[in-house]
């Protein structure tokens, strides 16, 4: 009882985690390095809407599974855990693989370990992490890198592309390595304590809030639709329909279309059809002169 209370009152102290690997045994370090390198290939293939990057996740996990499951049958079982749908911003993916590695170790050691927890953690983390990750890596870092890169490349110098790659990838590697270590240590200390103490709900809620907030922000900044229709007025400037749409609600159409796509996805409509639908919608709008 008293233990739990302490945890609840000052969770900071209990879950303080450093990102150094000095306090880890050499074997752990080796495994983490190998996993880190393998995260590069998360999207080497993409197995459609059935598995997405599941194979890449499995490839990342192999060093851990090989290590903890000497027995091929047990390893097969463990491997099969990673064939379900998996998709996440690549740069934060190692958080999940790190946690899963730690949990696999526990599962291998402890017969009573409930392996369905592994699936649950994986499934509940990829959404929020992607919301934050995409917003930062695609929305901020990439734009900064491109800004500098285009500036340099406009003079005809290949330095532009190189600067672009370095500005983006150096933080990407650092973050990914940090995430890999963090994930493993979280899986070792935090996740179990956290799920024992009921803190897990708080953590997933917090991650979910941040994730949804960032996705909402990305929707408003990345999805766009401008109606070109005007109402002609004899002898004066024509009236722009878009102005009145904006007066009603800024970003109304992008918001509705995004929510529409979301509804369709929830009804398990295939993404491809949705993409084709959007394409068709755009074309029809173009042909009718609604956009220009």
């Amino acid at each position, binding site marked *: 009882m008293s233990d739990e209370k302490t945890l609840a*009152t000052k969770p900071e102290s209990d879950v303080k985690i450093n990102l150094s690997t000095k306090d880890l045994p050499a074997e752990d370090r080796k495994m983490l390095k190998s996993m880190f390198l393998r995260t590069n*290939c998360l999207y*080497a*293939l*993409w*197995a*459609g809407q059935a*598995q997405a990057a599941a*194979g890449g996740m499995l490839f990342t996990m*192999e060093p851990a599974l090989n290590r903890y499951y000497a027995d*091929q049958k047990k*390893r097969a*079982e463990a*491997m*099969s855990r990673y*064939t379900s749908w998996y*998709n996440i911003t690549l*740069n934060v993916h190692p958080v999940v693989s790190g946690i899963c590695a730690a949990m696999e170790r526990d599962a291998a050691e402890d017969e009573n370990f409930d392996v369905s927890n592994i699936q649950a953690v994986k499934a509940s983390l990829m*959404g*929020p992490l*992607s*919301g934050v990750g*995409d917003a*930062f890596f695609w929305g*901020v870092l*990439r734009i900064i890198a491109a800004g500098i*890169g285009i500036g340099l*490349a*406009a003079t005809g110098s*290949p330095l532009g*592309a190189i600067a*672009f*790659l370095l500005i*983006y990838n150096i933080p990407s590697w650092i973050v990914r390595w940090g995430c890999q270590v963090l994930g493993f240590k979280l899986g070792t200390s935090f996740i179990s304590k956290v799920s024992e103490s009921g803190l897990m709900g708080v953590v997933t809620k917090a991650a*979910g809030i*941040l994730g*949804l*907030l*960032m*996705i909402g*922000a990305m929707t*408003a900044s990345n999805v*766009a639709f401008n109606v070109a229709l005007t109402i002609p007025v004899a002898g004066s400037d024509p009236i722009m329909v878009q102005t009145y749409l904006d007066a009603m609600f800024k*970003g109304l159409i992008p*918001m509705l*279309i*995004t929510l529409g*796509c*979301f509804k369709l996805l929830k009804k398990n409509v295939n*993404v491809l059809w*949705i*993409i084709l639908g*959007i*394409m068709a919608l755009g*074309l*029809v*709008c*173009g042909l009718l*002169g609604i*956009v220009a």
Partner: protein
Amino acid sequence: MLYTATMALLAAFVAKWSNNLLGQALTERPLVAGLIAGLFLGDVQTGVLVGAALEAVFLGMVDVGGSVTAEPVTATVLAVAFVSTMGMEQGTAVALAVPIGLLGGLVYSVIHLSISSLAAPLIEKAAATGDPKKVNLVWFVGGGIKHFIVAVPTFLGVLLGAEPMSVVMNQIPDQVIAGLTASGSLLPAVGMAMLMKMLWNNKIAIYWFLGFILVAYMGLGTVGVAAFGAVIVTLVVMNDLDAMKKEKASIAAGTVAADEEEDFFA
């Protein structure tokens, strides 16, 4: 021409697959794809300049959640090929690249979201054997095939030739281009929806709307929203931890009270 086409295919293949082998290193973005195309086609300067111009054009087109809004590699490599080896004007090539990128996106969507699924049962089977090597075989051979297929339109585009391509493309009426551009601006909606599907939860759905209006009505950028998000999340977590603490305390108190009562009545 076959030589140029082959070089273009290789450039496209390298740009696209290296991106996915090196941790989405952004080698598929026009800035880098242009340089790669320039190297393969022997005209680095053109590659760089066309890449820079197209990077700006495709800057807003971002694929999230697994959706696809446009295929920048096909567009960039073809544009570089047209300018460097077929004497097209750079301006024309850049303009041409936009519809090519959007159509290429459509082709890529079909491969990425539909045909790629063929790999899924193979991976499942491989995993069931417990032999990692088998999984790796599927993952990398499959990846090679996929990225090769994706590079084929570039090959065909060069074979078709700059003149005919631009004639074909120029016959596309302005309204269709406008429509395709509108599609390009709308397509990120699909990616957003895929992300939303991953973490939607009615209890916190309102935060999606909050993120939207912080951008639409407060004019914040992503970093600003993240900063406010940090504040909100901290407050929510503090509050929840507090509630948890109180609840535990009251349960504890209840237990204690019960204990005492037992003592009392014993």
